């Protein structure tokens, strides 16, 4: 479905190194608009570093990142966020000192205009913006993600699965054009994983947001994604539709080393209990 549409994000020959350690080498791929694209690969393959480059937290050594047709390589992270690059984090970066509601509201920061003086007086623009934001967060995000029962709780008191959901809520408040999810279901039980999968699909279909995710849960990747990119040792070793990628022998070798390829393939495809 999405193969024909123009790319929303293009990564060209991206290389990143920390000192002598090459983290990414000439990584190129595109994310079609409106798709769910998954980046998979063994631990240490550079998936999260890839995300950090796109967010602007790491400065790549060379290469280009184009978002909606323009190069964003020179932009600071906050500017990229304002353009609509929203993300969640692998080890959950919620703000412990704030309630769930405030965490979600924070996501909208870059799109608001309240100045320091408005804020101190809480009058005019500040009052209007905050009230509008509250209504929108409640009606569009909190109801959608079914987290209304925890809205006033401090995030520190939440269970792991709920925290992941609040992080997704905060990313949605960022008015994303592309949503980058770093291991959205890692550490979740079956039920929580199914909920998250449902939310991801709804975000794609109802909100029309492109999704780029890093995930180890192959079942989820196979079910949700239109497009899969496989990284190993900082290089793209395969890309394409999920079925194509899982039958690629390089991929299987990267994941599981050598061995009986047929058994391994079935393991990857979830036919054999892991």
């Amino acid at each position, binding site marked *: 479905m999405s193969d024909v549409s123009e790319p929303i994000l293009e990564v060209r020959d991206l290389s990143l190194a*920390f000192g002598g350690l090459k983290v990414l080498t000439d990584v190129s791929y595109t994310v079609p608009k409106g798709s769910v694209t998954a980046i998979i690969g063994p631990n240490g393959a550079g998936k999260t570093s890839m995300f*950090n480059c796109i967010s602007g937290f790491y400065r790549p050594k060379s290469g280009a990142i184009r978002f909606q047709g323009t190069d964003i390589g020179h932009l600071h992270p906050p500017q990229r966020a304002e353009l609509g690059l929203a993300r969640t984090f692998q080890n959950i*970066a919620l703000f412990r000192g704030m309630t769930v509601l405030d965490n979600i509201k924070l996501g909208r920061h870059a799109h608001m205009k309240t100045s320091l003086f408005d804020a101190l007086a809480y009058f005019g623009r500040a009052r209007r913006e905050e009230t509008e934001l509250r209504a929108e967060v409640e009606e569009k995000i909190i109801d959608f993600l079914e987290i209304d029962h925890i809205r006033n709780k401090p995030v520190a008191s939440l269970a792991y699965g709920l925290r992941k959901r609040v992080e997704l809520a905060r990313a949605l408040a960022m008015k994303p054009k592309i949503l980058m999810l770093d291991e959205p279901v890692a550490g979740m039980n079956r039920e929580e994983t199914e909920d998250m999968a449902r939310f991801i699909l709804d975000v794609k279909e109802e909100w029309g947001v492109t999704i780029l995710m890093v995930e180890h849960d192959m079942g989820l990747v196979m079910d949700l994604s239109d497009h899969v990119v496989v990284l190993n040792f900082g290089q793209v070793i395969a890309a394409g539709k999920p079925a194509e990628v899982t039958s690629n022998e390089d991929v299987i070798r990267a994941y599981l080393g050598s061995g009986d390829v047929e058994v391994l393939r079935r393991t990857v495809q979830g036919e054999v209990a892991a």
Partner: protein
Amino acid sequence: MIDFDWLFFLEVSLAGLGSGALLALTGLSFVLIYKATRAVNLAIGEMLMIGAYAFFSFSAGLGLPWWAAVPAALACGGLLGAVIERAVIRPMLGESAISVLMVTIGLGSVLIGAVELLWGADPAQLPDFMGTSPVFLGPAYVSRKIVIGFAVAATVITLFILAFRFWRGGVALRATATDQGAAYSCGIDVPVVFSMAWVFAGVAAAGAGILVGAVGGISPAMGIFGLSALVVVIVGGLDSVVGALIGGVLVGLIEAWTGTYLGGEFKTLITFGLLIAVLMVRPYGLFGTVEIERL
């Protein structure tokens, strides 16, 4: 323009070198604590002060000879370090670095109050135990106390560095500094390393305190010396022993020169100006480890 008095400059520089050695010793004590426990100890100057006052009590108060009073004061410094670690630093384990820093600010305040309470607020002189006859290095005159201070500080620093390199405890300390979790799982008793670091730092600080007190007298405000030591470790890098040495000598020289040629009141201006400049240009100091941030 009048002729520049090179001999005088040399004498000032030597004096600066002398106080630089004391700064380096204090800085070493600071680095020791930072390396082992990641605590920025803003009470270092006050720990130094307690050492000086302890010496004062043993020598002037109890009339002990200096060779008995010095070890006694050092022991007090070590004890103080152990008590501080156990009572206020260990409960803060796992708290943010900022909280620990604020605890040490409170600690400094408590120690100043304790000194005023026990010994009074007036400045005092340590009994003279080093002699006063001047020392001539070539043509340059240097105060005897400064020479002795330099020699002692240099010896102690050398001992510390050797211990750091070769002694089992020193190795354990370096391992803990690199990775607490890994050190713990290798069988290193991390809490003991913590205590040990504070004890040794307390001893070093007390030693520095005796020397500083011998040169400049003692008062409840002498903890301000700790602020100069803070400049030293920022310049050298919070976790670098070598940095503390070089930073100490550097700051000692700069303080001596500004104090002499610009006037004493400029000392704080110049040293703290230096601190801010270093923070702007090289935030991790000349030899400090650059921390890599992770998301």
